[in-house]
């Protein structure tokens, strides 16, 4: 199908006062053939603009976008042979489901029989055959979403672009459609670029994920790589729910080795670094630093025995969120709030004092100024 390459692509708008606003800044990406690439980030990070530039719906201000080696900056959208699924479905309101799916083929003058065949095959795959005569307004949100996907499929395009396609569905439907799109990717083996603000969608669907913020790619990696080795503070906080816990503090060294001490008084958290961490961070002694630890790497002391890698901290329970398969404890030590992810059966109530074990082998360290990760992937 298609390989899409973005080479130093920027999108520059004129702001209300005539100033330059860089919605997308110097983004370079190579989306491999048959890959499922997710662009994820908070609203306003430029992810949709990037996708729309690929589609040809926005002009590229700087840089080049190429499809299968051919620069397409000045190619009309219809000649790029991409299909897009829009956030609000963008179905033609006055056409039936059949007509919606057939429209693109009719414009390209496909023979009637071919159109019929393709539409009925796509409808079959998506389970919307009984809806072919309906108008979009007579469909539920999930059905409209399927029609929008169907309209993209029938064209058999080089690649599919999805612009937050699930954000208007309710929670249950979102989970279901997420799986259907993943299966579709396996089945069609097509290149897909998928924009979302939801890190769960990104993690579960993407072969690779580009995390965007302020128009710039923060990190581009596979889901687990992103989760385990976030390149900076933003990625660390954005990927994973509940988010990674951050403790602001300083490093100090004594005869015993390197220690992290939380800011504020009481500091709440004081831990001794492992030797390999100490080796990496020696140059940071007496400087401010941020320690990051995922909620699943924090354990209530009753649950897990004190280990050589652990460090015990006293904390107060602020809030308990039971999720059935697990329970989230919102804790506070000194000035530091943090979250601990526990098995469902863990007892406790707000206000209670608890001991927690921090799994130091899983620690991340970040520079507070550059926000970059200081720990190299082992």
């Amino acid at each position, binding site marked *: 199908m298609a390989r899409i390459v973005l080479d130093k692509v920027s999108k520059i708008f004129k702001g209300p006062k005539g100033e330059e606003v860089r919605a997308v800044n110097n983004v370079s990406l190579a989306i491999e053939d048959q890959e499922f690439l997710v662009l994820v980030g908070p609203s306003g990070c430029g992810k949709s603009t990037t996708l729309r530039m690929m*589609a*040809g*719906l926005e002009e590229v201000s700087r840089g080049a976008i190429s499809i299968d080696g051919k620069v397409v900056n000045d190619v*009309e*959208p*219809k000649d790029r042979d*991409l*299909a*897009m699924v*829009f*956030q*609000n479905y*963008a*179905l*033609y*309101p*006055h056409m*039936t489901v*059949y*007509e919606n799916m*057939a*429209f*693109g083929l009719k*414009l*390209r003058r496909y023979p009637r029989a071919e159109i019929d065949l393709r539409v009925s095959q796509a409808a079959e795959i998506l389970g919307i055959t009984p809806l*072919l*005569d309906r*108008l979009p307004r007579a469909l539920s949100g999930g059905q409209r979403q399927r029609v929008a996907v169907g*309209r993209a499929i029938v*064209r058999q395009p080089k690649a599919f672009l999805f612009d937050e396609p699930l954000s208007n569905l309710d929670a249950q439907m979102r989970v279901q459609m997420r799986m259907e799109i993943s299966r579709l990717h396996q089945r069609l083996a097509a290149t897909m670029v998928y924009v979302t603000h939801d890190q769960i969608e990104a993690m579960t669907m993407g072969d690779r994920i580009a995390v965007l913020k302020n128009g710039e790619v923060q990190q581009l990696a596979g889901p687990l790589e992103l989760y385990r080795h976030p390149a900076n503070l933003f990625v660390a906080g954005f990927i994973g729910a509940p988010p990674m816990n951050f403790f602001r503090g300083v490093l100090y060294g004594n005869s015993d080795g390197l220690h992290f001490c939380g800011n504020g008084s009481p500091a709440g958290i004081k831990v001794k670094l492992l030797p390999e961490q100490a080796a990496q961070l020696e140059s940071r002694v007496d400087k401010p630093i941020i320690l990051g630890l995922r909620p699943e790497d924090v354990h209530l002391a009753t649950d897990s025995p004190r280990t050589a890698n652990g460090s015990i901290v006293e904390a107060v329970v602020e809030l308990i969120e039971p999720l059935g398969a697990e329970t989230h404890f919102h804790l506070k030590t000194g000035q530091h709030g943090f979250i601990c992810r526990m098995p469902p059966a863990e007892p406790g109530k707000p206000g209670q004092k608890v001991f927690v074990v921090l799994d130091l082998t899983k620690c991340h360290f970040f520079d507070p100024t550059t926000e970059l990760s200081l720990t190299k992937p082992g």
Partner: protein
Amino acid sequence: MTRRGQILFFLPALLVFLVFVLLPSTQTLIDSFYSHQGIKHPFVGTLYYRYAVTDPKFHQSLGNNLKYLLWTLLFEVAAGLALAVGLEKNTRFNNFLRVAFFSPAVLSMVVVGLVFGFLFKDGVGVLPGMLNEGRALLTISVISGWASAGFFMVIFLAGLANVPEDVLEAARLDGASARQTFWRIKLPLLKEVIYVALLICFTGAFKAFDLFWVLLQNQEHTSIVSTLLVKEVIRFDNQGYGSTLAVILTVLVLLSVAIIIGAKNLWRRGERRGPL
């Protein structure tokens, strides 16, 4: 508002309204069956109606109304739609053009009529002969278009603003050219606005008066029903025949409303079809 409050609120309004509807319409209907020439007012039955139906001047006037309707469909509605589609994008230049094309709508039609009257005056005006027998109706239609196309443009612009941007983008990706997008996406989605525009244009063609009166008061063959009506009332001082023409004109307006609504319902019914 409570149900009781609503009734108390609307009772006076409804009363005034009904008095204003019932009294004049009843009297007009009655008048149309009586002669009002002279002092006695004898009952003449459908005489005036029969007269109107056979009156060549009435035929000509009605024909002029219909011709005028066709011309204004072109110069007002179609032109307004073309302007709206052309000026759809919000740019500074387009905004200037929009204001320019709309501006005549705030002018008094009487002033427009007089001014063009001077312009077309034989021997004096800059463009004489535009109100000659053969051309007068077309000239007035063009002036109407000039004055009203901007108004229809505004209506259509409002309609186009309601066409979702992403639907147009989907059409672009589906391979629709600008022309195909217009005919197959925008136009069907402007349906409701087009009905309103047609309703205004159809009723407007029968309501027209001031331009014709000011520019063509002295021409017989370019009368429309409303100017004929006023001329007949003035000439014969005959309330009876005037009432008859008033009744006929009102029926014509209502008929055109009915035609538009009928067409709308027909289209609606046609919509519930299966796949092509």
